[in-house]
């Protein structure tokens, strides 16, 4: 049925237009039938509502991802427990035995375990968050859903890990003859606030990582530096009580968000040994200082959680229509 003779592209008549489109034009036609601009970012609250609708996707995706994480290893899901234990073993060997940072810190093992696990939660949420968009480009391009689901599941995966880690923390605490008190329950609101904080941080780096793939390479170095500043394996007091440290540096170290979260959780779980168990007053003072919790700590926890949580969410939402670009 092909036409005789050659086809010259330039000589083809202009394509037929839809009559209604020719009449009204695109914008008016779309308005008449209630069509919406494709891929347009919804307003903030509507976006949050959409996110709530997909909550089963967020948790389902996180669980599936978590299961597949160790599917190649022979010991399988046991690694969920083994990974944090081995982590602590390494840090205990280096900072408890080789460098004897434990001096002056009561129940050093518990002190270390809390610091390592909490910081690890922040660190891995951020690193996985920064990859969450670029790694799932196929999914983003195939199905439509609020993209904030992806960094949020990255945080939830780590939250599940943190759950396993907290079992170990409780085990260590009981092993060191800590008696459970009602104070331990304060750990729960602290960890909820910390999750909000980590989630916000994950969203910030997720947007950065979606544009600049270098973020994922850079982040481990930044987060490791941050960890060494946070008193994860030593007490902040042992640094700040030295002479010649300006006051603002002390404040910055104590109120640095992860450091503050770690300090508060430690104070919830570690009880001070009595004066009698220390030989000198100076030793006892060092032990007290190592658990020093700065003023208005809880108020600042709420502040940091809201700042990072809300700020990170808004920052991520602002680029919603860009994530499919890759």
């Amino acid at each position, binding site marked *: 049925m092909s036409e005789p003779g050659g086809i010259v592209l330039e000589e083809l008549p202009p394509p037929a*237009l839809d009559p209604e489109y020719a009449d009204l034009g*695109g914008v008016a036609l779309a308005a008449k039938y209630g069509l919406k601009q494709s891929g347009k970012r919804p307003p903030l609250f509507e976006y949050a509502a959409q996110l709530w609708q997909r909550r089963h996707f967020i948790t389902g995706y996180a669980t599936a991802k978590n299961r597949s994480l160790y599917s190649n290893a022979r010991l399988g899901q046991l690694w969920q427990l083994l990974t944090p234990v081995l982590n602590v073993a390494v840090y205990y060997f280096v900072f408890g035995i080789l460098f004897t940072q434990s001096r002056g810190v009561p129940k050093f093992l518990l002190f270390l375990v809390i610091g390592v696990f909490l910081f690890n939660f922040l660190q891995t949420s951020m690193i996985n968050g920064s990859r969450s968009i670029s790694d799932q480009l196929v999914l983003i391009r195939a199905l439509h859903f609020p993209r904030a689901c992806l960094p949020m599941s990255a945080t939830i995966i780590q939250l599940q890990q943190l759950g396993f880690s907290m079992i170990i923390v409780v085990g260590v605490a009981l092993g060191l003859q800590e008696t459970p008190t009602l104070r331990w329950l304060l750990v729960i609101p602290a960890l909820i606030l910390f999750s909000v904080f980590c989630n916000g941080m994950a969203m910030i780096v997720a947007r950065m990582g979606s544009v600049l793939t270098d973020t994922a390479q850079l982040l481990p170095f930044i987060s490791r530096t941050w960890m060494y500043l946070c008193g994860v394996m030593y007490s902040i007091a042992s640094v700040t009580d030295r002479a010649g440290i300006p006051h603002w540096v002390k404040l910055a170290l104590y109120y640095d968000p992860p450091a503050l979260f770690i300090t508060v959780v430690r104070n919830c779980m570690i009880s001070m040994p009595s004066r009698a168990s220390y030989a000198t007053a100076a030793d006892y003072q060092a032990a007290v200082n190592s658990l020093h919790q700065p003023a208005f700590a809880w108020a600042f926890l709420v502040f940091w959680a809201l700042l990072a949580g809300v700020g990170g969410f808004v920052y991520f939402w602002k680029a919603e229509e860009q994530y499919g670009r890759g």
Partner: protein
Amino acid sequence: MADTPKVLPSQVLRAIQGKEGEHSFSEEELAALRAQIIEERAKRRAEAATNQPTVVVDNLNIVYRIHGAGTGRGSATGALSRIVSRRTSPTIREVHAVRGISFVARRGESIGLIGRNGSGKSTTLAAIAGLLPPEKGGGVYTDGQPSLLGINAALMPDLTGERNVIVGCLAMGMSKAEANARYQGIVDFSRIQETNPHAMNLPMKAYSSGMAARLRFAIAASRDQDVLMIDEALATGDAKFQAQSEQRIRELRASAGTVFVVSHSMAAIRDTCDRAIWIEAGKILMDGDVDEVADAYEAWSKQG
């Protein structure tokens, strides 16, 4: 007459042209079949012409900006300074992929996009899916948010097929119960358990590209979507699956959705579409009845 034609339109056409090797039809039968196909298509197109529009593409322009062409991207200090200063790379190349495309798609239409590689077909679909922001002065308006099905690898390669189905359904906005209820239907449709009964428990990275494409198609087609866009996804399945997915496309079309198909196989376009749009160098050359446009495109391709 019959809802499911036993003979596909492309087969009839090939038989009339004498290209189909063996067939059991007489010339009169073929002519009657061809007339019936053309008549049914004309009827469908006439009905669809007054339906509500589902996609309005209004003077669409898409420009790709390729950052950092020629400059080093690897140095950490360079990346850091770019993060801090929020400066973009000095060298940006612009590629004007789609140049002022306008068309209207209505309920019940199935539209084939044809054209050479790099002519802007896939870019147009990505823009309809809302993945690429259009330039100022034009836009894409849709009813609901369309899904785009490409030939790329599995959705989540590390996860098992089973998890991919459930998580994919949840991502499309189904509830947990709904996703579980649809699971078996999706697996049956994809037929991937026919070759390997344990396929659903394997991670999708272990699937062949055809198996992965079949499962993806089954997931996306499981929900009655307003607008479904298929980018070469049909080309990867085997003949049996192709026939089956064409059947599903006809069902979707009948349930008042709109279907877009990008394919280099004119047979697949003729079998699944009523209307075709020929895109060349980012512009629409022809827009009309599938036979008319496909014939012109084939004739032009043969000129070399």
